[in-house]
């Protein structure tokens, strides 16, 4: 009887030692391998982001959207309902901004596209569809709500998108091209 108790006590001590050993292994692996490699990963990804920052400025300018406010808006999606009331007032400003965004957007495709004909006004407006409302398009296509941290810019972008889609429909009178647009997918 007492021998069994002794035996069990020894086993208890052994198990406790194993627990301690395992926990120290956890601690050493986390401290020695995981944290330094994480630091290296974050350092490298920061370098990559710095080298890609020009793309963010490009898309920000083409869409007249701030990506910092965009990130905040995704976190506060409950405020999106408040913007619905103000969309009517923003449509009047859309026409004045449409030409501004069109000229800004042409710079983007001209940099890397192989367009050889000089872009006409209709091409400008048709090209505006992916560029100016790029972020809002992207967000709506993926099913998320467009951000509303700055109501004016998002509403402007949305109204611009509506106007451009109308122009597209008018230009390609056979609506088959618009119906098969990639923006309609999903």
């Amino acid at each position, binding site marked *: 009887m007492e021998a069994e*108790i*002794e035996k069990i*006590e*020894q086993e*208890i*001590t052994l198990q*406790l*030692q194993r*627990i*301690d050993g395992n*926990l*120290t292994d*956890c*601690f050493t692996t*986390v*401290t020695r391998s*995981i*944290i330094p490699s*994480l*630091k290296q*990963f*974050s350092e490298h*990804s*920061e370098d*990559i*982001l710095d080298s*890609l920052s020009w*793309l*963010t400025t490009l*898309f920000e300018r083409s869409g007249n959207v701030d*990506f910092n406010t965009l990130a905040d808006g995704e976190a506060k999606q409950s405020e999106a309902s408040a913007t619905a009331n103000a969309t009517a007032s923003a449509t009047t400003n859309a026409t004045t901004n449409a030409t501004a965004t069109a000229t800004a957007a042409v710079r*983007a*495709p001209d940099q890397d*596209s*192989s*367009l*050889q*004909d000089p872009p006409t006004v209709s*091409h400008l407006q*048709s*090209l505006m*569809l*992916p*560029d100016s409302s*790029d*972020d809002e*398009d*992207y967000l709506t*296509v*993926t099913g998320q709500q467009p951000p509303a941290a700055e109501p004016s810019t998002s509403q402007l972008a949305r109204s611009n998108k509506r106007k451009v889609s109308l122009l597209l429909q008018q230009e*390609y009178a056979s609506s088959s*091209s618009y119906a098969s*647009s*990639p*923006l309609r997918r999903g």
Partner: protein
Amino acid sequence: MQNPHEQQQIDILRRITATVDRLNESVVTMNKELKVANSYSNKLKFIGDLSEHYHESTQFNLKATGLKKDPTTN
């Protein structure tokens, strides 16, 4: 007489608590680093999605306007 065993078990438990304390601190540090790395990854993903979407849109527009040309032809 369970005293020697109990004393030993108490010592081991004391070691365990100290180890778990240090483990907690290192896990907190790891969480901070992970937050930073996660934010960078999300930004990179956003840039990648933007460029992919831009590519799709330009391809569609080129096809729709009839300006898309075969890259091999000159």
